[in-house]
């Protein structure tokens, strides 16, 4: 196993990534899909508005991208710190 300071740096880098991804997760669903929907109502999408699209389709697509990008970035981080299996 890597030494303590290196595994601390690995964990900090992971936490930063998790925070960034959770902000995006929150903004697309709770933000665009619910709270900010009235503000986005001017943007028309397929017979309704952007907020409705995010609530019923867009957020799910972003969730998918988030998980795969996180998995891919973490594999890189694992290698960088030599903690991969």
């Amino acid at each position, binding site marked *: *196993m890597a030494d303590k300071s290196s595994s601390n740096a*690995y964990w900090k880098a992971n936490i930063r990534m998790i925070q960034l991804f959770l902000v995006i997760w929150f903004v697309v669903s709770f933000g665009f899909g619910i709270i900010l929907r009235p503000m986005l*109502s001017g943007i028309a999408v397929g017979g309704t508005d952007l907020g409705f699209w995010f609530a019923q389709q867009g957020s799910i697509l972003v969730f998918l991208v988030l998980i795969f990008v996180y*998995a891919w970035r*973490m594999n890189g981080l694992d290698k960088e*710190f030599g903690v991969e299996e």
Partner: protein
Amino acid sequence: MDQFTLNLLVIGATFALYIGIAIWARASSTSEFYAAGRGVHPILNGMATGADWMSAASFISMAGIIAMASAGGYEQSAYLMGWTGGYVLLALLLAPYLRKFGKFTVPEFIGDRFYSKSARMVAVACLIIASVTYVIGQMTGVGVAFARFLEVKSSTGLYIGATIVFAYAVLGGMKGITYTQVAQYCVLIVAYTIPAIFISLNLTGNFLPQAGLFGTHTASGVALLTKLDSLVTELGFRQYTGMTTNMLNMVLFTMSLMIGTAGLPHVIVRFFTVPKVADARASAGWALVFIALLYTVAPAVGAMARLNLTTTFWPNAVAGKAFDGDAISVAAINTDPQLNWINNWAKTGLLKFEDKNGDGFIQYYNQNNPTVKALADSKGWTGNELTTVNNDIMVLANPEIAHLPGWVIALVAAGGLAAALSTAAGLLLAIASAISHDVIKGAINPNITEKGELLAARIAMAGAIAVATYLGLNPPGFAAQTVALAFGIAAASIFPALMMGIFSKRINNKGAVWGMLSGLIFTLVYIFIYKGWFFFPGTNQLADNVDNWVFGISPLSIGTVGALVNFAVAYAVSLASEEPPQEVQELIESIRVPKGAGSAPHLAMH
């Protein structure tokens, strides 16, 4: 070939497949029984997770809930975002670390991390309440599906379903369940998407229902959702895409479903079956791919089925205004072969109509809307005549409404059964493992042999199936409360404990136990106040409506607040007491890095 024979053939063929897998995938060790020997490919595990996750409710009810909700289809987006967004939390916050921990059950992690048998037993109790509530709905779903498509009594259907689950769950444990779930996923997704594609083509010309939802309604030339909005408002219903009137509640409800999803043990344990930590992360992504295939189709099915249903009852509404033409006539319902499905489903009681004013037409509108009621009075209508539309109709009757061939109907029947059976099996495994691994090996008899524990696990599984079958036949009052009870408990109790266990080194045994208990009790009491103490009817203090809810927060959404209570209490109690011991600090260090998962202690034992 008649419909009954087709149903029998298709359902029979899928069941033969499940039994075949049961014989092939027998478990020979506890590692295989609890975690499929940790040899499941991440993509296959993603499929199995999809089937494990998507229950009878997702398959049969969700599209109808979105379609028919009186608050409009938009507000029900909480289900779509909640039941998918939880996988982001699983992938980022829980699955990789719990896989690295490398043991068999969720309570076992809580017990080891918080070095406390009490914490483990609280987790076992939460797991059992949540999973038992959840499994009853699946068992009744199996019975109902059998009764409807194979013309047997629903109790007989339930026994047949239970026997099938018994075969692959008792023999194969997690290994048998995993590979059966992969097959069940394939059956259910094909069954769900085929009718949806035909309906989307029919209404919008789009092959993909996801594009059709935001596409143009061919017959009227306007956007599908614009058409639907103007049609339902003409009939006096709330605008389909209308904004929620209770934003705080929608936010908290979505959050409860998300963290509840991430905290449900039967979902978490699926990620124990992959070989590596990196696989656990990727597998959560694959799980969401397979789930999203259904969850992005469901809102399209909902909107299109609502439009189809409405234009069936108001033929003029296809291209113009509903009230500019006559409603559907009773004569047409009884003679037009295209409308056979109405009487077919009226027989089941899921759809009811009644010509109240005896004019020979069935007027469908919202009689509680004053403007529309005034118009109705002037036309001599004496009330809405489409008196019952069960949510489940929207999926179950879809193939008939779209005039699809009989084999599609049979496939929908097999798909509904696959959804219910796969979720039931996952839940039963979570219950059985909690009993054999956490209670028997963890507390009663720690020296039990590998062989003894495997036998105990099989007996626990058989017992869990028997109990679930009994409760499916005699559903108790709480059976209808899956969303409140299962997701509420998972959100308020299990999810915060797991998250703090991984991300904080400071939370100790006392903090975890008090946090879990406070979150749990807070949530349950809030639910009981509105839904009745222990769900006994009439024992509620306040009527369950928005005027009585504190800040407009529904009992279904309270899990989020319960989770906050859990976090706050756990931190306060931990800071006021001693730090966790050194070996626990080391355990946390070790689960945070992927390296070394393959050589976890349990594997060294075999």
